[in-house]
Structures are given as C-alpha cells and as structure tokens.
C-alpha cells in the first residue's frame, strides 16, 4: 500500500491520514464528565505561558540569532574599536567594558518583547486566552519569563566571549552569577516598558522604531562604554540618573567582587518603579476595549 512518491512534501498531511481522520461515533465518549478543574494559580499560569514562549523558540530556533550573534558582534566590535583608544589595551578595556556590554546588549534584546507582544496579540488565539478564567497578567508575565530564558543564553554567550578575549572577573564564578542575576531582575522589570509599547502601538515597525529611540540614548549615554568622569557636566547629569548606568555599575561591581550598595539600591528602586508604572499601564491596555 505504500506509495513510493519522490520528493513528497513533508509539510502536507497525507491523504491517508485525512481519510482515517474522523469518526463521530468516538465523540460522545470524550465529551462527558469533564468538569473544569479548580483554577490554577497566577504563578502556574504565568509559567505555562513562559513554556509557550520556549516552545516557540523550539519551533523557530532562528529567533535565537538576536541573543547569540548580536551579542558576539557587539562585544567584538566595541572591544577592538574602543579598546586601544580608550584604555590603552583591549584586555585592560575589557575588564571595565565587559559587564557594561553585557548590560547594554541585554537591554537592547529586551525590545523584542514588544515586537512579540505586538504580533501575537493580533492573532485569534489571543481572543481565546482572554476568555479563559485566569490571572489576567499571566500571558504578559509569561512573555517576560520566556524572555528571561533568552537573556540567560545571551549572558552566557557574552561572558564566555569575554573570558576568551581576556576578561578576568575578580568576583569569580559567584560574582559573575550574582551580577547576571542582578541584570535579569532588572530586565524583567524593564521589559514591562516593551509590553506596554507592544500593546499601545499599531504595528511591529512602530514598536521597533520607538524601542530604538528609547534604547539608543539609554545605552550609549551611560557608564557602559566610558567612565562618566570624562564627560561634560550636562551629560554627566543625564548619565547619573540613567538606569542603565546604575545597572552597569551594579553589575560591574558585583562581578569584580565589590559590594556597591548605592548602585544596587538604585537598581532595586528602578525595578520596583518600572514594574509598578509599566506593569499597571500594560494591564490597563490589555484589559481595554
């Protein structure tokens, strides 16, 4: 019975499968006695949505380019571009710069959250999600959880790159892990900005545009690339209140085994403020219509 067709299209379902398809006599058995189980907790629903995001990565692995190739490019480019000029040698520059580029790269990657929300929300399946009796923010928190997975990958890529290029963190393994953790906590909060824009703006393009307009000044006008003390006063004023500076300072200190209480406190303040303001705003937009 097997046909020996060549070049069978693997994406099409075989006619045989279709024929075997469907028999209504089997239906009634599965329909009865399926009362709804008790409603899951908000955390459980959020994790389920996070799992959905990871499944999507599994089906479309190309989307990992932005968390692998992009950070590699950033690290190489800036190490060799600025290294010699700014610090005399690339290895020396790397000790200052690597935690910064880690923060900048991951802050840049957070903007894909907005793009994902924007394209996903228009699909029919979202109507279904919104008719489920569950904790309302779960789909949004799910995006952020899925994205944390991406940030971890990017962090590993950058730290490994740095080690290869000659980065030697004084904080050791513990310091590096703690530094990455601080960054992830901040990015989780920061991503609410993008869920908000993802829901607010009409098209994927405008989400990208706004994201770049926000991210470019935030990442460049910070302590990531150069020591702020070399900058003119008016610029220092901005750099000093820029959250990316605080995060970069906190991560840099933590990775070198130093406790920078003030930077860490600032990160904590930003984390809470961003979550409260943009989390609330996101949910207002989500519940609107």
């Amino acid at each position: 019975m097997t046909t020996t067709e060549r070049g069978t299209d693997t994406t099409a379902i075989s006619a045989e499968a279709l024929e075997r398809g469907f028999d209504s006599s089997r239906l009634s058995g599965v329909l009865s006695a399926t009362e709804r189980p008790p409603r899951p907790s908000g955390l459980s629903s959020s994790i389920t949505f996070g799992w959905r995001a990871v499944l999507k990565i599994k089906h479309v692995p190309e989307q990992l380019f932005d968390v692998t190739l992009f950070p590699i490019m950033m690290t190489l480019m800036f190490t060799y571009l600025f290294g010699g000029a700014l610090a005399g040698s690339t290895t020396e520059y790397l000790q200052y710069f690597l935690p910064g580029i880690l923060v900048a790269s991951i802050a840049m990657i957070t903007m894909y959250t907005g793009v994902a929300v924007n394209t996903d929300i228009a699909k029919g399946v979202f109507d279904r999600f919104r008719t489920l009796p569950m904790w309302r923010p779960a789909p949004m928190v799910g995006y952020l959880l899925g994205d944390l997975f991406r940030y971890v990958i990017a962090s590993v890529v950058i730290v490994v790159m740095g080690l290869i290029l000659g980065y030697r963190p004084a904080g050791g393994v513990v310091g590096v892990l703690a530094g990455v953790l601080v960054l992830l906590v901040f990015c989780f909060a920061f991503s609410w900005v993008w869920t908000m824009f993802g829901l607010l703006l009409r098209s994927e393009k405008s989400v990208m545009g706004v994201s770049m307009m926000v991210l470019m000044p935030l990442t460049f006008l910070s302590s990531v690339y150069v020591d702020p003390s070399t900058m003119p006063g008016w610029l220092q004023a901005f750099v000093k209140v820029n959250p990316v500076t605080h995060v970069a300072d906190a991560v840099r200190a933590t990775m070198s085994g130093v406790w920078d209480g003030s930077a860490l406190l600032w990160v904590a303040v930003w984390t809470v403020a961003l979550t409260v303001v943009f989390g609330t705003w996101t949910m207002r937009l989500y519940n609107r219509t």
Partner: protein
Amino acid sequence: MTAPPAIQAEGLIKVFGSNRAVDGVDLTVGSGTVYGLLGPNGAGKTTVVKMLATLLRPDGGEAQVFGRDVRREADHVRELISLTGQYASVDEDLTGTENLVLLGRLLGAGKRAARNRSAQLLEAFGLTEAADRQVKQYSGGMRRRIDIAASILSTPKLLFLDEPTTGLDPRSRNQVWEIVRAVVAQGTTVLLTTQYLDEADQLASRIAVIDHGTVIAEGTKGELKASVGLGTVHVRLRDADRRAEAAEVLERVLGSEVTLDADPVAVTARIGERDTGGPGAVVEGTPVTELAAEQAALALTELARAGIVVDTFSLGQPSLDEVFLALTDHPASDRSVDAEATEQGAAA
C-alpha cells in the same frame, strides 16, 4: 425561581468610530439549545459574540450569561464559556498536542491530566496522526476540528462558534456539524454564527437574522422558513408553447408565485411552506432540503401527468440573499464590499 437563560441580552450596542457595528441587539438563548445568528459578512455577528464572550465592552445595553453580567462579572462568565473564534483560535506555531496541553494547563489540569486529555481529544477528533505537527500545516477541516477540540477540553456550559464552517469543503462541514450535535447532546448551549441559512437550519432551533447591526427577524426555524420559503424550482420545457400551461400546474401544486424567465422555455417557481401538512403549517425538525425535495417531486409528477415534457430541472435552496429579500425587500449587502466600492468611487 426559574434558572436564568444561557444568554439574555438587551439593547447591545458597539460603535467603532462612526460605524454602529452593533446597534441595539436583543437576544434570549435558552439553556441547552443551539441558537443561530445568521447574517452576511459585516453584519455584526463577531462583534456580538465578542461582547458576550467578555472580549469587547458593550457601549450600551446589558447582557447576562447564565445570569452573570458580562461587564461586572466577566471573570465569572469566563468560567462558563468557551470561544471558537472566526479565525485561527489556536496557536499556529505549536503542534496540536502542545496547544491542547497548554490550554488544559491554563484551565487548571495537572501535567499528566492535560496530556491524557489532549491525547483523548485528538483521537476522538481524528487528529492523532497530526498530533505532533504544527497547526499551520493542518488542512482547513483539521484546523477547525482542533479549534473546537480546544474549546471542549473541559465542557463549557456555553460554547460560542463563530462561523465554524466558512470556507470548508462539504465533507469537513459535515464533520463540524456532527461535532456540534455531539456537544449539544451533552447539554452544552451553543451560540453559532453563520452566513448559511442551510447551516442554521441544520443545527439551530432558534435563529436570529442580523443585518447592519440589528436583528431583522427572530424566531424558531419553522417561523423563519415560513416567511422565506423552501427554495426554488427551475424547469426548462421541450416545447415553448406549453409554458403557460406548465406555469399553471406549478402554481397549483406549489401554491406560490411563478416567474416566466427571459428564456422562452423556462419557468421558475418558489416553493412555499403552506402545502406541507396543511395550510400554513410547518413540519418542525424536518430539514428544508427534504421538504423542498418532496414538493419538487410532486411538481414534476404533475407536469408529467399533464403531458408536459421537461428537459432540465433544478432545485435551488433559498440563499441568504433570498432570506433577506423575503425579510427586508433588499438583498444581503456585504458591508466590506460596500466600503471598498465607496473607496474606489472616491479614488476615481
């Protein structure tokens, strides 16, 4: 105290900009029944469904689902309903299994229970072979089946089906109908929207005809059929001279007006309701097609008896257009087409 109806809506309104998409819709849907919302593209069917399913806030009016207000008690309403939207209502990037497990988990099932339930439903819906393929690779019929399977992971009290068979081939359409019947047999109430009179007739017990955001007719199937008729008989005769005679025969048998077409040998006659089982009576529960076929057969027999030779014969079901003609004296208009035409007019 009697139990509240599955849906009770009064004066529902939704306005998009200057477009009154839904303009004062009243609906009462009894528990355990299938209710058909029949109307052309752009009539406002999806908007009504979205308001009842807590996805859109009504701009005016009230609606309750099993006595729970869709605005103030939205969360409670969501525990009672499932929605199979007009367009892909599962995640096309995920596989059939992944979709059902995901939704099962979101409804509160444990990992194991969700997996078992998913496998069981995929089997019953004839999708086991496709369980591990991404839904975007499914055929139209399979897609619709997984859409519906996703809605009955746990039995909802009220199921919304928004145009479940639009664009499906007849076979897949029949499968969807069988599924709907099986779901209703378990006691679930169904609100079904459709553009096909035939579909509403097959599945629904009551039907509301909706156009430009308002209900223009509402009643049992029988009431609706009585006002619309069963379809049309079209005959072409061998001999043009006998046309007048044939028209007379048809008029007598079918009891409805007869049109003499431009074609000199053709006669078209509407099949009315009144000759089935007594004057004005409607045989409840008998599909339109069967009643129409019965009467058409009778008409043919009578023509033969009169010695009039028929060359070709066809039996047409009443189209949505005819329903609208009968109810409103204007054909069903597709609003989106209207809009396009206006735009083109403006551009020209």
